[in-house]
């Protein structure tokens, strides 16, 4: 019998972990002689105080939803895809090539095409490590990490040598055509009369991300493929007994994973309206934390993405208004990752004891 009830596993443990991370962060801020309460106020006000703050949070969250889902689907097959960063980078290339290839008449045509382009490129980047894992037994953690570096180097080469417009000093692609510009949240909400700041880059991709969450849930818990992926992830020997091919599951799962990571580029690259260096900005790695914290469930991934969106946006506010160095924001984020991901058992074990005691008292 499980000691910890489901609701506590899904909600209480992450909440306690976050709380612990914030407490330690507060201690660190105190130690460098700043005021943690003011820092928290700034983070909250800077994010929720105006619609621009919310817009930025949602923009970051959109990235994290895609990469979080990418890591989560791989987790279901017990594969650890650390290559979200590289797959999203390649996805950016796919999106940029699609956007630059045609004089798109309208975003409704450009978006699906770019989505396919990004997903294909991301999937391709995941395919090689997946093949090596399935056929050669090369560990997917190692190969996907290496492919992150390769992706980054490929991007530098392409932007500097190939995609950069002649005469430009900036390692970036040309601007995308007008028809490939996505409507922003301010345009969408403005159409129904809700005012929303047009400073924030959050755009229609956010809704695509929500749709992806729903499709993810359908795939994993309602289809044969999802059933096979979960079965393989739980027990490879049982999967073999049932006639589920490990090779096939590894390849398909990693293709989906890479496609999800690559699809992220419709948000960051299309919102920037051109492809720049390091456009992913670590979202691929944050996706790992998001998937861990979200327990590989799309709803959990959504909530965790919003939290990390808040951390990034709130961090930018602290950086802007206080003497707390920008690096400290990274420390806070790292602490959240540490507590929610790596130190999960540290919270779980004492909590299990508490529940056991409560149960005894009842009985």
């Amino acid at each position, binding site marked *: *019998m499980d000691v910890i009830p489901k609701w506590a596993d899904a909600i209480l443990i992450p909440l306690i972990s976050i709380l612990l991370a914030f407490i330690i962060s507060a201690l660190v801020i105190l130690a460098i002689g700043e005021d943690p309460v003011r820092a928290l106020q700034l983070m909250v006000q800077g994010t929720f105080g105006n619609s621009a703050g919310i817009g930025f949070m949602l923009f970051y969250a959109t990235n994290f939803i895609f990469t979080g889902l990418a890591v989560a689907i791989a987790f279901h097959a017990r594969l650890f895809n650390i290559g979200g960063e590289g797959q999203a980078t390649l996805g950016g290339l796919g999106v940029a090539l699609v956007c630059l290839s045609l004089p798109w008449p309208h975003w409704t045509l450009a978006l699906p095409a770019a989505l396919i382009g990004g997903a294909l490129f991301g999937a391709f980047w995941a395919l090689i490590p997946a093949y090596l894992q399935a056929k050669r037994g090369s560990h997917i953690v190692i190969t996907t990490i290496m492919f992150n570096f390769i992706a980054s180097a490929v991007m530098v080469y392409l932007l500097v040598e190939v995609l950069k417009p002649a005469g430009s000093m900036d390692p970036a692609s040309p601007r995308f055509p007008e028809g490939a510009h996505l409507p922003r949240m301010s345009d969408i909400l403005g159409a129904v009369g809700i005012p929303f700041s047009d400073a924030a880059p959050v755009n229609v991709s956010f809704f695509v991300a929500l749709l992806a969450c729903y499709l993810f849930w*359908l795939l994993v818990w*309602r*289809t*044969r493929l999802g*059933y*096979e992926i*979960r*079965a393989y992830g*739980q*027990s490879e*020997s*049982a999967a*073999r*007994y*049932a*006639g*589920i*091919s490990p090779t096939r599951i590894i390849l398909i799962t990693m293709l989906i994973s890479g496609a999800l990571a690559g699809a992220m580029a419709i948000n960051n690259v299309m919102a920037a309206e051109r492809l720049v260096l390091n456009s992913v900005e670590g979202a691929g790695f944050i996706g790992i934390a998001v998937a861990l914290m979200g327990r590989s469930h799309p709803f959990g991934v959504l909530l965790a993405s919003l939290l990390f969106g808040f951390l990034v946006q709130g961090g930018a506010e602290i950086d802007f208004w206080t003497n707390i160095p920008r690096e400290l924001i990274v420390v806070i984020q790292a602490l959240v990752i540490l507590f929610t991901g790596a130190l999960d058992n540290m919270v779980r074990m004492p909590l299990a004891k508490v529940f056991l005691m409560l*149960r*005894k008292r*009842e*009985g």
Partner: protein
Amino acid sequence: MPEAKTTGGAASAAPAIELRGISKAFGPVQANKDISIRVMPGTIHGIIGENGAGKSTLMSILYGFYKADAGEIFIQGNRTEIPDSQAAIAAGIGMVFQHFKLVENFTVLENVVLGAEEGARLTPSLAKARQLLTELAKEYELNVDPDATIDELSVGHQQRVEILKALYRKADILILDEPTGVLTPSEADHLFRILKGLRDEGKTIILITHKLREIMEVTDTVSVMRRGEMTATVKTADTSPAELAELMVGRKVLLRVDKVPATPGEKVLDITDLGVIDEDGVERLKKISLNVRAGEILGIAGVAGNGQSELLEVLGGYRHATGSIRLNGEEIDLTGRASDGQTRRAKGISHVPEDRHKEGLILDFFAWENMIFGYHHAPEYQKNARFMDNDAIRAETEAKMARFDVRPPLPGLAAKSFSGGNQQKIVLAREIERDPDLLLVGQPTRGVDIGAIEFIHQQIVALRDKGKAILLVSVELDEILSLADRIAVMFDGRIMGERLPAETNEAELGLLMAGVTETASAA
């Protein structure tokens, strides 16, 4: 509550262990209810009961893993608190678990001293342990190579290391939890000799098991548990297997399988010159030829690891092989694209695998998800081209659980939450209800309680009586003898011979299982 009776041994001495009124509840489940028991020193005391009767909980309380809600523990007459396993060891209690707790890549010596080293330098402890091991080996046939690493040892030897660990820690009371579950008959016999030797030296042994034969063979006294209660404690000499079985289950139990003679029909399965070479280049099956006819149970007897698992894997479609297999006269692909589990199932081969935890079930999946495992592509489980029909699967699972008496009958419960017998019933329900032409069954009653064994045997015989072919692999000779219509004995990847149950006996089969043949080996 019946009063705990004195359990043999010298009447004057204090009991080695006395439990008074032990109770333990997990939430609403009362695992142990007011249990009192006295075990006299220098005896082997059996505790028998079905899975989930509370045997393991009781022993976990004695070993300090759980704290009892009520009750007292007396060791050698002294009231003792056992808050953790350290305290249990200090009180002279040693435990040999069902699943060994050994470091695989350490040597026997290193495992024995692990956690009981004297000081930072290992050498003196190791030397001491080596000397002790030599003495014990002489005294009790506890021979193990002290310098072998654990992964080089057979399961039986690994178990001896666990016993040695307990003795090194000066245990006077030895608790063994289902010790023979993983042993071959001869290894089990050897273990019993060791246990008897230890008893004669004055050690007290508690043997937890659900096998009646072992209780009768080796114990002095036996306590029966049922649903958390101690229903009886008797001298083994004064009881019988039938009486114990009734005490365990709470009703009369058939210990023999009730079946009419088989009426075999056409050959369903025809195996010719089947060979398997495994990943390490070892020849696991050496040109085996066998056949199973409709309406017949072919039992494959043999000590575990002589090729039976590989045979099942080849037939189940997840191991490549050479030679030929015909099903209903039709050649089966043994190496190509069609040599997978899905194709085999489609052809009418169902498979109850030997290890339900590793293969037959996904323990974290719900019962209803497990009820379609392997058949999840079947059209009746699909709502449309894209989605599975989970509601229909749940409903069907509920019906199958009712027919196979799976308890509790809840499709939404994870497989790991069921007892061993009920897990096996889930697998059996899934495979038998497909109405296969050929049913492969491996160790159908391993780790399954008596009540469920009876039921499982009846289901297998019922499928035979419907005219289906059944290939039964079991390391339990009793099971083979009572279920099979024809017996083939495997040894070292070969078929040593075929016998009819009525014309053979355990002794002859035992010799064949050990690779000894008077006549030349058959087919």
